[in-house]
């Protein structure tokens, strides 16, 4: 106990509620066990904010993850949601199976660069190829944290972590890969750019199809030194922002966002919400895959990180449409429909015998 006298109590303020009349507390999770200052914790907070502000029922989200520092984070947000911390790199397949049974949940996958760019890159690729309806966040710091700081496959050439030599192996740019695969929502952000990341995540949640957000999320313990190209300092200095992103929810279109004076581009999302992209210098057209790839390669050449909504395509069918299933989630189909009746087997037996 402190010796200081207690502060006078502030007048009670009304707890702010979202469109479902839920306080933000309904979306929080347990305390984080990550290193203090970890970029991943900032992303967890953004997830909480985005889910709350988007008015998603907290128990209708499924938190999916693989293995690694990032994949531990589902314990730290959305405590009312079921989650599955699966095996290393294989979260996309587990999510695909769960989605086949219950397509009515919002699948929020969190993964790391070890998970997504190395051991699980095949599963990521195939989930993109199927246009699996999910949000897939890569918490990308260029190193393996839990095994104490080895380079991952996204480490930039010339970047040097706290210990050992600089990385000389060509990195895999997950956004460029996703665009080439025809991913329908590709964004890059930075854990330190809270506003941009929140807008992008909200938009991803409103998207039907695979939404990849590659978030540069510095590892404060192993890769936050000055020579690292994924340190807070470096990214802040070298972030090239494509546009200012604002999210306008379908349930409240007029509030929150002012119409900007300069150029902007509105993109309508599947649930009727809008993401408004305000031009900063050159206008980026997210429907232009070539432009997105050029922006990525241009940034890479200059040692920069380009952030924003890189690519978007609302026209492709998602996995749900490909599966040709009944309207309700398979989970809700009663047992007596799942098991065909006896007459159908009698008929088959008779046919086999004829």
């Amino acid at each position, binding site marked *: 106990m402190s010796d200081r006298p207690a502060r006078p109590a502030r007048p009670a303020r009304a707890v702010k509620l979202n469109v479902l009349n839920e306080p933000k507390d309904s979306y929080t999770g347990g305390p984080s066990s990550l290193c203090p200052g970890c970029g991943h914790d900032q992303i967890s907070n953004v997830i909480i904010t985005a889910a709350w502000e988007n008015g998603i029922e907290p128990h209708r989200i499924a938190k999916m993850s693989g293995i690694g520092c990032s994949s531990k984070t589902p314990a730290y947000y959305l405590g009312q949601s079921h989650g599955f911390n699966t*095996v290393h790199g294989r979260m996309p397949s*587990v999510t695909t199976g*769960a989605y086949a*049974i219950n397509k009515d949940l919002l699948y929020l996958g969190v993964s790391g660069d070890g998970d997504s760019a190395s051991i699980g890159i095949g599963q990521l690729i195939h989930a993109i190829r199927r246009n699996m309806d999910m949000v897939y966040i890569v918490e990308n710091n260029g190193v393996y944290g839990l095994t104490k700081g080895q380079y991952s496959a996204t480490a930039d050439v010339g970047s040097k972590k706290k210990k050992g030599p600089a990385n000389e192996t060509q990195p895999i740019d997950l956004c460029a890969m996703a665009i080439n695969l025809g991913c329908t929502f590709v964004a890059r952000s930075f854990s330190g750019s809270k506003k941009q990341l929140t807008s992008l995540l909200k938009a991803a949640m409103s998207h039907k199809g695979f939404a990849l957000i590659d978030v540069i999320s510095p590892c404060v313990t192993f890769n936050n030194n000055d020579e690292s190209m994924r340190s807070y300092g470096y990214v802040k200095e070298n972030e090239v922002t494509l546009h200012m992103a604002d999210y306008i929810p379908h349930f409240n279109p007029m509030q929150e966002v002012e119409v900007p004076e300069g150029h902007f581009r509105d993109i309508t999302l599947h649930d009727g919400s809008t993401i408004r992209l305000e031009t900063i210098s050159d206008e980026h057209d997210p429907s232009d895959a070539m432009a997105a790839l050029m922006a990525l390669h241009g940034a890479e050449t200059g040692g920069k990180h380009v952030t924003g909504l890189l690519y978007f395509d609302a026209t492709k069918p998602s996995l749900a449409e490909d599966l*040709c299933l*009944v309207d309700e989630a398979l989970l809700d189909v009663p047992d007596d*429909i799942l*098991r065909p009746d006896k007459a159908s*087997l009698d008929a088959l037996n008779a046919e086999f015998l004829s």
Partner: protein
Amino acid sequence: MDRIINDFTINIATANGTGSQSANLILLQSLFDMGVPVSGKNLFPSNISGLPTWYIVRLSEQGYQAPGDRTHIQILVNPATWEEDIEALEPGSVVIWNSDTKKKTVEREDIISYPVPMTSMARKINPKLAKLVTNIIYVGILAELLGIDQACLESAVAKQFKGKATAIELNVTALGLGRDYCKENLTKSDPYAVESREVEKPQFFFEGNEAAALGSIYGGVQMLAWYPITPSSSLCEGIINYIPRLRTDDEGNATVAVIQAEDELAAAGMVLGAGWAGGRGMTATSGPGISLMQEFIGLAYFAEIASVFWDVVRVGPSTGLPTRTQQSDISMLYEGSHGDTQHIVLIPGTVEECFEYGWRAFDYAERFQTPVFGLSDLDLGMNRWACSGFTYPDVPMDRGKVVREQEVFEAFETFGRYLDVDGDGIPYRTLPGSGMDPILYRGTGHNPMGVYSEKPEDYYNLMQRLRTKIDNARDHLPAPIIREEKEGEVGIVFLGSMENSIQEIDDLLEATGIKVSQCRVRALPFHSEVEAFVRRHEVTIVLEINRDGQLYGILRRELPNDLVTKVHSVAYSDGMPPRARIYAERILATLEEVKQ
């Protein structure tokens, strides 16, 4: 010369991809329709076309279904194996050979030779399809030589080509041509003949894989994730084929999701995802696929996810002999994944059981919240077996301890995902999306509340409970089929597709004066009746199609010490379906050793 009726083996040597399979199936089906007890084994290569294939048709009044010890009638169409096929024949055997084969002839004096210009005959009917038609010509020759009923042949053709009028006409013409050639040019000098038999119970031919597929459909499968691999692909394709008829509504929307995965790891992951979400997910694969799935299998065991995996076993290790049969994945399934594990394995020995375990697998998986394996093999899965029909499930779907309603949930004093409320080791679960007890499932250590824990007592208690849970499953699983002799001297414990050879083995042993009791294991962990069977017999032989005696190893480890010395292993595998004589001789040798 005495006629030999309905008791001989025909071996048909052709090349893969030449269309011989349909001709062979027509032969098999027509004999079957005459009521002749017959079985067929397809020995095919891992190849699309060109490599040698043999099809073995065995006729046996005793109903023996194993491939016989020798060939009585050899069909020679494939020049690639010509000499070795002739050389393997015993004196007195019959050879029906394509005399149009370049540079090939049959010179052995001690065999009965029927040359037939199959290629030129086929060309006359259809020059473009000569290769294909050649096959049906030898069926026509056989039909005339053996006395196969024409009506049965024609109905078998119709069945094979299901309404394709041109194909049916072409095949019937070729059959007639074969028959005519035989009548006009060949003088029958062999003793072999077929005769129709009255069949007590009508039966049809069916493959184990298709039966397991149909069973899965009646088990309410909701998600099938699969990656193609011989010999399990036809199980998955069977499900896909039945969905439009059995699991699709009037608008054409299905109640089963089918996903062709990028590999077996992903297929396993999807099965776990489906189980986690509260659905019935399954995959089917073979040994190499199960090897790849090991990590997920451990997760399913540890996080207690209902999941169903079929393993249609082929010859291992590694790529092995991909198109040959074996029972060599028993240990891998029973103890799959790293760490201490134990899994429920269902082991059908007949197509009826393939169907039954197809639906029961889901009930066990949801009841015990654990992975359940169906253990079949290439012989059972891909060959055709006589079947008298499938029995509709006699119990409603068992969805296990799932809490779906808020009132039920609130009635729990304390709810913990891994809390053993009933003392049977099986906890209660809620489903994602329900908002009830929302926990983060994990493959890391956890306490009864589902929260991460590295505490020694939490880990220890969890592992003990998991053991209790699976141990308690024993007597809920299919009991062994026991056929007991009152002598009680020798007992044979065996499993799966060995069912098709066991009666012949039993008869061979009885001919030497040894009466044996049979105990066909139908599930792991062992039913308590297995131990009782071992106890009742002086000596027990564990008979299996592999090198190491995997079932024997498991049994030895689980039996009480006083019974261990009573159990002996006879394990043999060369890739072929089990030939009775080989196993009978090895049993005799082992019994001889035991005596000494």
